[in-house]
């Protein structure tokens, strides 16, 4: 499907990208970022959909169904939780501006 070395290059570059993104992040963003990256690996949903889409026996379909269920939970839950966390940063900024002056 994908040439082995090409995949290796993708892997290497993506790893550096991830590392660079997180380096120099203030501590207050650690939790939201953990949650955000938790959401991003919700892309596993796509893989689970492909796996279920290729499943042929009832057994495979059952396992695939569970996979899609879990993946969907990861993606949706991760998004909601991250958004709610970051929501507070925004409202706090506005309130803090009013409160301190």
């Amino acid at each position: 499907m994908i040439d082995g070395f090409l995949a290796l290059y993708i892997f290497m570059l993506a790893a550096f990208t991830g590392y660079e993104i997180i380096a120099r992040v203030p501590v207050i963003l650690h939790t939201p970022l953990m949650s955000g990256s938790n959401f991003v690996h919700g892309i596993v949903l796509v893989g689970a959909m492909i796996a279920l889409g290729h499943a042929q026996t009832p057994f495979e379909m059952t396992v695939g169904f569970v996979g899609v269920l879990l993946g969907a939970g990861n993606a949706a839950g991760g998004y909601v939780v991250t958004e709610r966390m970051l929501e507070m940063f925004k409202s706090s900024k506005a309130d803090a501006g009013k409160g301190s002056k």
Partner: protein
Amino acid sequence: MNWLPTLIKACYFLAALLFILGLKRMSSPRTARGGVVWAGYGMLLAVLATFFLPGIHNVGLILAAVLIGVSAAWWTGKRVAMTAMPQMVALYNGMGGGAAAAIGAVELIGYVRELALLQPAGMPGGSPAVPATVPLSPVELALGVLGALIGAVSFSGSLIAFAKLQGWLDRRFVFPAQRAVNLLLLAAAVLLGVLLASGHACVPLIAAFFVLALLFGLMMTLPIGGADMPVVISLYNALTGLAVAFEGFVLGNEAMIIAGTVVGAAGTLLTQLMAKAMNRSIGNVLFGSFGAAGGEAQAIDGAQKPIEASDAAVMMAYAERVVIVPGYGMAVAQAQHKVWEFAQLLIKRGVKVKFAIHPVAGRMPGHMNVLLAEAGVPYDLIADMDDINPEFAVTDVALVIGANDVVNPLARTDPASPIYGMPILDVGDSRHVIVVKRGKGTGFAGIENALFYADNARMLYGDGQAAAGQLVNELKTLDD
């Protein structure tokens, strides 16, 4: 009809780009909110595109699973209290790991089926009627097995972390030779994995492999104490990312490889940063001697001395400098708004008030900052541990609300203590310490706190919300 696959590939590319840009934006407070929305669009695009992938069957089933999963997670995610966020992250992360393991399982089972079809035919040329999946190459097989292993460990481990933070599983679960048993479990799982990857796949072997992997995740997480959970969750987050990347390789999906790898690398670094903030190495957290350090804990002399809210309020009203140290107890009591109201009254009286945040206050680094931000506390009043610790010596009153382990001097003085070595806030250096606490119990790590018995410490018993309310009222009567 050649444009459809290209269009889908383009969607995946765009999704990967949006994920990276979104994460980048999330790493700065100014742009963080937009970041998650960008990543959200990427996810939507990738999921929608997948429905149109050529050769996808069971669309009804997929749609049903997606709808059920999304609505259940959306509903719980919206309803859960902000204080419960850390365990929700653990839960959703575990689901991702489970999904990766399920992908691996489906691929392996399918591989066994195809193998059985191929063998009588002899040559691969006589391919089965539905060539939906090409038999996997050895590299794909190995990565698929590895991804499944990591995903399954992350799944069961994250669920244990969730149960612990939720309070369903309190305390640690320790037995003799635990490390040896865990190592044996892992070795057995890896051995079966190698067998699977080298082509000796059959369904019972696959089942045994998953049982062992799940069991290992379970056993590895059970002995880890609650105080170390943030690091563990972050580690499982990184592991799930890796598992997703490996399964992405098996499925030939670049978006999964990129997103998974980015999360794997970012999560690893984040785990290191968190562990460093707690002065612990990752190895120490996972296999370390949390609570197994041997020796009796130091006995603590003296008694806890109570104080009335009125006295505490007067003490702080006429103080010059007050440092408020919030902890998880304040979060549970939803007292952050009352505490900020109290702090504002103090500030109005000319008291210099600061909030001191331990790196792991709450249940995760930055969790307390989020909660204080929710209450409207301005950034410049919030101080990190390293900045505030020298200031305690010139502080009149340190008000500890619902924090326990992060202010426990035993971390500094008692080598037998499970939290020995963890940096703490030196509240004991201030002239007076007032501790708002619900009862006389121990903290999350289950350790007695020497601070509560110190000569300059007074205990204000009560729920954080109620105590802060009392303090506010007492201050107001002072002003009248």
